């Protein structure tokens, strides 16, 4: 650069050549940039399209069912922690909760709980009855269900009275596990539609009775596995259908919690007393013991009322997988564990492992016929550590990590992706497919960034990019089935509930009896356990 020269015109007119060269120096660089950026974009797109074409996964966006017509008249049985959540999913919250959430939202704009509730669709229903054996909760339920200009919901002292009422079309059951089947069966016999929380039942015998009652009555029956509404699960179903994973031989599911609330050390209400709680009604078919407030509020810790980790959490993990694979009831279940983290007088284990075997099940294969068959479902839980272990479906060709988001990683020794792996088109440590329903686009191959920012919560899912409570969608599906009188519309009906309940009960029986429990698919009975043995451990 001897001199800039731009101020010295060369020739009689126009811009001096040196001016021109220096003035436009950025243009070639910009040209190079354009060519580079375009070629990178084309390359990335080609790879993405090639992979997506190979996988052919369709991100499902289910339509929301229609809810027109007269309001469905609902009775709520049980207004504890879950009962309150279910009522909110239906659109009814206690005044105290509303105030608390509005305050939380005002303090923290990222707190979306109030917004999610307030913008929920109206499900076109009325709460006409409430039933809770604890007076305080019954009053709260009435307050939540009261709408301006309408009669408040009626309090029924017993569920039998509620079921006898002509003002109730359907009931939502959110009681301790030992009451699920007796109430749901009575409701079906009374012709009332049922939404019942998991675990569907508490004992083997009542599971058959409930199935029979629901099938005979033709009521609309839904079990509370709201995960079935999670949009990523619907996409995951297509991943399985398209055999993207190859033969899945092992599934790993987990629970990791490390706090008192997660270990069911729920608060004991200061107004709890034999005067405010109908203790006899709470006990039901459980052993008769004197009033015990801890048993009432922390019932999950004792076998007569609950099923421990089985009913609370294994059922969710089992059903999440069963909705994808429809593998049904395992041929055998073995479980083991102990009370290692909360030695507070509880009966149920707090560290617990369950192994379910499905020796004849297959998701499909990419290898020669007959080489692969059989699947193990493993559930591993501790209430003394909250390190997050993902849900993994491990196939010969790929591994799927299943959550609110979805990641599929190719296996380094895959048969199906051998060529793509050889060409470095895909890599074992980079997702072959990623799905984040909170984003309106961005499907297909992704960077680690998307993975890190992935939403891991399971309470919410997305519809058209909007955050929605999955329980709300699950109940909406149930209400739509009631309106249209189509039992098949529900995604977790009596057959799915039967499979969930039997599988979980087999796991409990294995722990209690200290042996592997086998299932006879033909007779639909456990094989190697007698009625007496089941009776001895309170599960007949």
């Amino acid at each position, binding site marked *: *650069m*001897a*001199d*800039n020269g*731009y*101020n010295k015109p060369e020739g009689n007119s126009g*811009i001096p050549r040196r*001016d021109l060269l*220096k*003035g*436009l*120096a*950025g*243009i070639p*660089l*910009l040209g190079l*940039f354009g060519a580079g*950026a375009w070629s990178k*974009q084309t390359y990335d797109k080609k790879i993405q399209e090639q992979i997506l074409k190979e996988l052919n996964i369709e991100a499902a966006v289910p339509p929301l069912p229609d809810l027109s017509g007269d309001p469905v008249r609902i009775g709520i049985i049980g207004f504890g922690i879950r009962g309150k959540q279910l009522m909110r999913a239906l659109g009814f919250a206690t005044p105290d909760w509303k105030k608390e959430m509005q305050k939380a939202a005002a303090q923290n*704009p*990222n707190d*979306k709980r109030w917004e999610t509730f307030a913008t929920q669709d109206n499900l076109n229903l009325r709460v006409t009855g409430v039933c809770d054996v604890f007076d305080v909760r019954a009053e709260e339920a009435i307050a939540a269900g009261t709408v301006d200009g309408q009669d408040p919901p009626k309090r029924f002292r017993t569920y039998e009275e509620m079921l006898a009422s002509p003002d109730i079309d359907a009931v939502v059951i959110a009681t301790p596990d030992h009451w699920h089947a007796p109430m749901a069966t009575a409701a079906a016999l009374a012709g009332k539609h049922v939404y019942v929380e998991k675990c569907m039942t508490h004992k083997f015998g009542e599971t058959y009775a409930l199935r029979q009652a629901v099938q005979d009555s033709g009521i609309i029956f839904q079990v509370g596995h709201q995960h079935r509404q999670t949009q990523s699960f619907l996409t995951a179903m297509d991943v399985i259908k398209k055999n993207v994973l190859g033969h899945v031989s092992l599934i790993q599911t987990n629970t990791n919690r490390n706090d008192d609330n997660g270990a069911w050390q729920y608060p004991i209400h200061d107004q709890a007393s034999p005067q405010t709680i109908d203790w006899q009604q709470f006990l039901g078919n459980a052993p008769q013991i004197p009033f015990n407030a801890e048993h009432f509020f922390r019932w999950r810790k004792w076998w007569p009322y609950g099923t421990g980790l089985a009913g609370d959490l294994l059922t969710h993990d089992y059903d999440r997988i069963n909705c994808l694979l429809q593998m049904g009831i395992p041929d055998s279940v073995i479980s083991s564990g102990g009370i290692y983290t909360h030695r507070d007088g509880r009966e149920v284990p707090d560290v617990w492992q369950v192994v379910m075997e499905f020796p004849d099940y297959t998701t499909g294969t990419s290898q020669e016929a007959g080489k692969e068959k059989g699947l193990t479902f493993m559930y591993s839980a501790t209430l003394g550590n909250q390190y997050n272990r993902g849900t993994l479906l491990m196939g010969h060709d790929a591994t799927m990590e299943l959550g609110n988001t979805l990641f599929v990683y190719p296996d380094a020794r895959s048969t199906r992706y051998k060529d793509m792996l050889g060409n470095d088109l895909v890599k074992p440590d980079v997702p072959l497919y990623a799905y984040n329903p909170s*984003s*309106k*686009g*961005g499907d297909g191959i992704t960077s*680690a*960034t998307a993975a*890190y*920012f992935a939403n891991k919560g399971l309470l919410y899912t997305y519809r058209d990019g909007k955050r929605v409570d999955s329980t709300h969608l699950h109940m909406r599906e149930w209400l739509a089935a009631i309106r249209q009188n189509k039992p098949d519309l529900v995604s977790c009906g009596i057959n799915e509930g039967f499979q969930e309940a039997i599988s979980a009960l087999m796991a409990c029986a294995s722990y209690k009896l200290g042996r592997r429990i086998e299932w006879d698919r033909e007779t639909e009975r456990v094989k190697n356990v007698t009625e007496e043995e089941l009776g001895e451990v309170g599960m007949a």
Partner: protein
Amino acid sequence: MRTNNPTYSTGQLSALVILRMLIGWHLLYEGVAKLWSSGWSAAGYLNDSAGLFAGMFKAMAGSEGLMTVVNFLNVWGLILIGLGLILGLASRWAALGGVVLLVLYYLSHPPLIGVQYALPSEGNYLWVNKNLIEAAALLVVMLFPTEHIVGLARFFGRKSAQPVVTASGSTQPVSQEKAHA
């Protein structure tokens, strides 16, 4: 913004132009890559903020309407800044804009002791990271303008004092009249 222009040796001028164009290239591609990535949003990044201003960034991420504006400004800001720096047009304004964006990125994710981000950094940093360094480099680009020598501004800047590079390699500011003399 300064209107007169400093003088440079050939080496200084080359170094400044290279710095300007490399940063321009980087910011332009950051903008273009975001533009081409469907569904891209800064919300995830902002939600992961830490430090003094984390509350403000998280509040921004929480507002859907605001994020539409923020994403638009960020993407098109990066593209225009990149183009300005590469082409040498309004490059001092572009540099200033770049400094503002980079300082915002820095404030959102300052490398503080004991702070972990969702996306791990590719190097090891303590208080100073590449965003801060790039912002400082852009300050140099802003305060030592070169677009009037190498850049489109050469065609538009004739009314202000212009530097010349002397035969010996140093530059002298000269007046418009003198330059045309």
